[in-house]
């Protein structure tokens, strides 16, 4: 294939990935890696490097809108970014020492779990009503605007959440994804934050986490401008388009279709990895 053809394919594929990411809430990275490896035959290391850059693009674009609304907690974000960035460096370190076939299988499994999470109902979280001493000392308590006025929240079980954030960072650095699902899980279920605060703070953290491992991927030579340039532009176009469609289209039907697509991709990644190992 010539460069022009590949660039056009990359751009349109990334636009579709950005669109799917915005509509399913999965983020762009998760669909990009299977698209590049299975669809275009790109080596998984190049694919992961490219996806990391795309993750930074989408999360920065989306976070810009969220922080202004006053939902995300800057302190919680920064405090747990220590965990996610350290984890991201660890993941990037592991990536060069893990066989490609194993990465493909792990990727498929993580993809399957993320799909399950995106469909999970997030009911009324068991929010803590009294301040936790450690969280208070770290200045993590906060409040957010709700219909009933300013609502306070008190995070708890900080050490457990911190460890989960290291895992989230490692998954991001190893697989080139944003690990949004894991981040939300540790804030929503472990810290007991209101759902809106968890999701917006997570979006805020994804870019910083990906930047840590993207640096390592760049120095290792896993980030190619010919691949990442059209992908970044495509993903940005796709997610902007997705945000617009989301408010108009019947999103449940769309989500169902896209979830099916992602499921097929996940299974294919696993099969691909297992075949490569054999």
């Amino acid at each position, binding site marked *: *294939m*010539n*460069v*022009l*053809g*590949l*660039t056009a394919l990359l751009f349109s594929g990334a636009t579709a990935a950005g669109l799917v990411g915005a509509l399913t809430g999965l983020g762009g990275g998760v669909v990009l890696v299977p698209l590049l490896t299975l669809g275009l*035959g*790109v*080596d998984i290391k*190049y694919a992961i490097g490219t996806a990391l*850059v795309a993750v*930074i*693009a989408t999360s*920065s*674009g989306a*976070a*810009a*809108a969220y*922080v*202004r*609304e*006053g939902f*995300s907690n*800057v*302190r919680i974000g*920064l*405090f747990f970014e*220590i965990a996610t*960035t*350290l984890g*991201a*460096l660890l993941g*990037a370190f592991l990536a060069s020492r893990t066989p490609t076939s194993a990465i493909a299988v792990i990727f498929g499994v993580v993809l399957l779990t993320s799909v399950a999470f995106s469909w999970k109902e997030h009911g009324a979280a068991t929010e803590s009503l009294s301040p936790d001493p450690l969280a208070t000392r*770290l*200045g993590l308590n906060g409040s957010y605007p709700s219909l009933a006025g300013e609502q306070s929240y008190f995070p708890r079980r900080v050490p457990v959440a911190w460890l989960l954030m290291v895992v989230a960072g490692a998954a991001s650095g190893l697989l080139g994804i944003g690990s949004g699902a894991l981040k939300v899980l540790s804030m929503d279920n472990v810290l007991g934050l209101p759902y809106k605060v968890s999701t917006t703070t997570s979006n805020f953290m994804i*870019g*910083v986490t990906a*930047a*840590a*491992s*993207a*640096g*390592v991927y*760049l*120095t*290792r*030579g*896993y*980030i*190619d*401008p*010919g*691949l*990442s*340039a*059209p992908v*970044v*532009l495509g993903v*940005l176009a796709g997610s902007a388009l997705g945000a617009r469609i989301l408010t108009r289209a019947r999103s449940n039907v769309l989500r169902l279709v896209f979830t099916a697509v992602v499921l097929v991709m996940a299974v294919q990644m696993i099969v691909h990895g297992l075949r490569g190992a054999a």
Partner: protein
Amino acid sequence: MSERTVRRLGREVGAILRLGVLISSAVIILGLVPYLVRDGAGHADYRLFRGEPEVFRTVREVLAYAARAHPRGIMQLGILLLIATPVGRVALCLVEFARERDRLYIGVTLVVLLTLSWGLFGPG
């Protein structure tokens, strides 16, 4: 952090993220167009991982390569600016915490910045 500071920080963070995405996409396009005009008919193969040449691997090399107006160097510079965008956001928080004399969070932010620079400038 006072309510006013939180709101201002939110606005500034939003602005820096949007600006970063805008500038980096503009630089990427600036490199991509001449690249496609010049090398569009060339053969593309990414099936086998070979690793990028040195000029794409470090901040200093990328800057030097882009300065010589190589299309692929300019594209990589755009990617580098995109990676720098979240780093800029953390640096902005550092300024804000320093203004508030919040020692704990000055420390927290410094650790995050240090980890990020290790990724970009460390041994890989």
